[in-house]
């Protein structure tokens, strides 16, 4: 898992998953938008999601944020990009999203991403592996926080010298 591109992708998945869980788990008061009452723009958006997830499911958070279809369309574009196979496989991205959802106590997010992991071929053992990692690091992190431990393992990982996508390699930038 070397190279910063992998970590940028992982960060996108973590961020957008948390954003969708926040909406899904807190916005009941807004009322979800269901298919029969949805505008044509929202129905089109839901159709794109169903194609992406190859099923009837729509990520729960979207049912609330589609009250502003233009906003939801941008969030969906970011979500679809984050979860598409690039450097990381979609299977791992769903595992990351599941771990994020469990850690943040998002019942709806955990259920959605567990379903996606299974759809993408993760078996019972694989699910429990992610549960184990999530649980153990929910222990280590709280032990570290209680004792206010300072980071001391940063030197293990090598630094990625490559530039940002499309950018100039380090040291080759023109002098001003």
């Amino acid at each position, binding site marked *: *898992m070397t190279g910063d591109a*992998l*970590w940028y992708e*992982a960060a996108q*998945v*973590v961020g957008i998953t*948390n954003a969708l869980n926040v909406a899904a788990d807190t916005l009941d008061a807004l009322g979800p938008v269901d298919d029969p009452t949805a505008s044509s723009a929202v129905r089109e958006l839901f159709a794109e999601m169903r194609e992406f997830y190859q099923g009837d499911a729509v990520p729960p958070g979207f049912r609330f944020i589609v009250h502003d279809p233009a906003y939801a369309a941008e969030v969906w574009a970011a979500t679809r990009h984050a979860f598409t196979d690039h450097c990381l496989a979609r299977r*791992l991205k769903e*595992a*990351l999203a599941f*771990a*994020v959802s469990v*850690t*943040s106590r998002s019942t709806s997010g955990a259920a959605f991403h567990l379903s996606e992991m299974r759809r993408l071929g*993760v*078996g019972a*053992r*694989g699910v429990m*592996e*992610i549960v*184990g*990692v*999530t*649980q*153990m*690091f*929910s*222990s*280590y*992190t*709280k*032990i*570290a*926080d*209680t*004792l*206010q*431990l*300072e*980071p*001391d*393992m940063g030197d*293990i990982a090598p630094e990625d010298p490559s530039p940002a996508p499309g950018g100039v390699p380090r040291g080759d930038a023109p002098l001003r």
Partner: protein
Amino acid sequence: MPTVRLRAAAEYPPSSQKLFEASRAWFNYDFAQPPAMSRVMAWDVEFGGPHGRAMKRAMGPGEFTRAEKEMVAAAVSGINSCEY
């Protein structure tokens, strides 16, 4: 600043040195001192031993590689806002 004084490896009994050896092997890295978390776990081997074995079982290769699991662990740490 840590809440406790982290002891140097030399201040631990022989039973804890086994945990430090396991930590060095796990990370495949020659630390000047074992990582702070390893030294915390070595304080009480009756907790640190089974906790560490559970971690190794969870992190070992299976349907997901260890590298993939390290990424999941980093995500969990981020959500828990853990700087360590």
